[in-house]
């Protein structure tokens, strides 16, 4: 995409046509990779054997559903994507893909992914995937994102559904374990995004997105990060006492929660002058740690499930 310029996808040589990669970029591949991982863990830790090919297909279509909601989000948010530094290189603001194409792709892939997951796994999983797409595209993108500073809190549910969909794809029903995996991501999302918003504030302000940092200031955001991190801890630890947890998970979770709490505490103690002086070093390190936090929690679930056949994982 080196020939993108400010002329809406035009170069001196003429119009630029979107390549295959530009349509793939509409599906937010980085978000999809997280969805693949959490959905796969949800599916593998379920106490039901799933044929490997069915598992592969299920995870693929859960990821495709997430990609479809990403395309719908890019269609809806094209105007604010153009303003933000982080997003203005996306295919629509760069003029490579027309908004209508993104809408068409998003709707088509939504239908396809829901239908195929229903066929590959079960109707319940397909219905939950459809609800996830609806939640992200309509509830978060169209409704909450531009109307409330709590957008991240409620909208975080969209990112929390994939492990639950994976679990339902395997078992056909929702259980306590699936709810706790959901809760882990749901409670993790606000401190994760708010620590990002602390050092990306100017961009959200320019786009008019009511992030907490913009509407209530950074002091309130710092308070919120600490409170939500404290609330996250019992949710993360509780999963350790269910059938998907075990001593390994509990040990990993205790360490990670201690680290996250320590990071949230450090963010809370700082004021703006100190943060600006060191280029938001603490906020950036906590943001990076939060990614590791989630990855290792789900990794620990997987380790417990993988060790079970040898009589080691679980309680």
């Amino acid at each position, binding site marked *: 995409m080196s020939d993108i310029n400010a002329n809406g996808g035009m170069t001196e*040589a003429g119009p630029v046509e*979107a*390549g*295959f990669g530009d349509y793939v970029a509409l599906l937010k591949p980085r978000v999809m990779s997280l969805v693949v991982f959490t959905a796969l863990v949800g599916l593998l830790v379920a106490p039901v054997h799933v044929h490997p*090919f*069915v598992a592969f297909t299920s995870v*693929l279509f859960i990821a495709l559903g997430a990609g479809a909601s990403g395309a719908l989000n890019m269609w809806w948010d094209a105007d604010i994507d153009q303003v933000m530094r982080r997003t203005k290189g996306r295919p629509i603001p760069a003029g490579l893909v027309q908004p209508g194409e993104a809408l068409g792709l998003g709707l088509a892939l939504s239908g396809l992914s829901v239908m195929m997951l229903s066929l590959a796994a079960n109707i319940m999983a397909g219905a939950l995937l459809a609800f996830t797409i609806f939640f992200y595209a309509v509830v978060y993108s169209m409704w909450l994102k531009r109307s409330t500073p709590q957008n991240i809190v409620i909208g975080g549910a969209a990112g929390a559904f994939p492990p639950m969909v994976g679990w339902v794809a395997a078992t056909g029903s929702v259980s306590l374990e699936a709810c706790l995996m959901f809760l882990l991501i749901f409670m993790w999302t606000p401190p994760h995004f708010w620590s990002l918003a602390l050092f990306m504030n100017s961009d959200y302000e320019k786009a008019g997105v009511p992030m907490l940092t913009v509407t209530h200031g950074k002091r309130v955001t710092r308070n919120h990060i600490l409170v939500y991190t404290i609330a996250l801890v019992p949710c993360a630890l509780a999963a350790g006492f269910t059938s998907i947890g075990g001593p390994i998970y509990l040990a990993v979770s205790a360490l990670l929660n201690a680290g996250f709490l320590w990071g949230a505490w450090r963010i809370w103690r700082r004021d703006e002058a100190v943060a600006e002086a060191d280029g938001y070093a603490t906020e950036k390190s906590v943001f990076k740690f939060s990614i590791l936090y989630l990855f290792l929690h789900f990794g620990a679930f997987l380790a417990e499930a993988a060790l079970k056949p040898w009589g080691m994982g679980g309680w």
Partner: protein
Amino acid sequence: MAFKPEHEIYKRRFGRNLGLGLVLAGFVALVFGLTVVKVTNGDPMQGFDHVVRPEMTPAPQPGGNG
């Protein structure tokens, strides 16, 4: 006389068409694989081959006409 060099736009179109072709081929393979797995792992299936099988005829009801 040399041909005009191919415009970059055709390369992009080719890449897009090739990508789409591969995705469609992958989808067909996926549906085929899924069908094989579902059929071989499911309940035993019976093929109906237009041959009368008396054991499948419902038993006459007591007191009925059949």
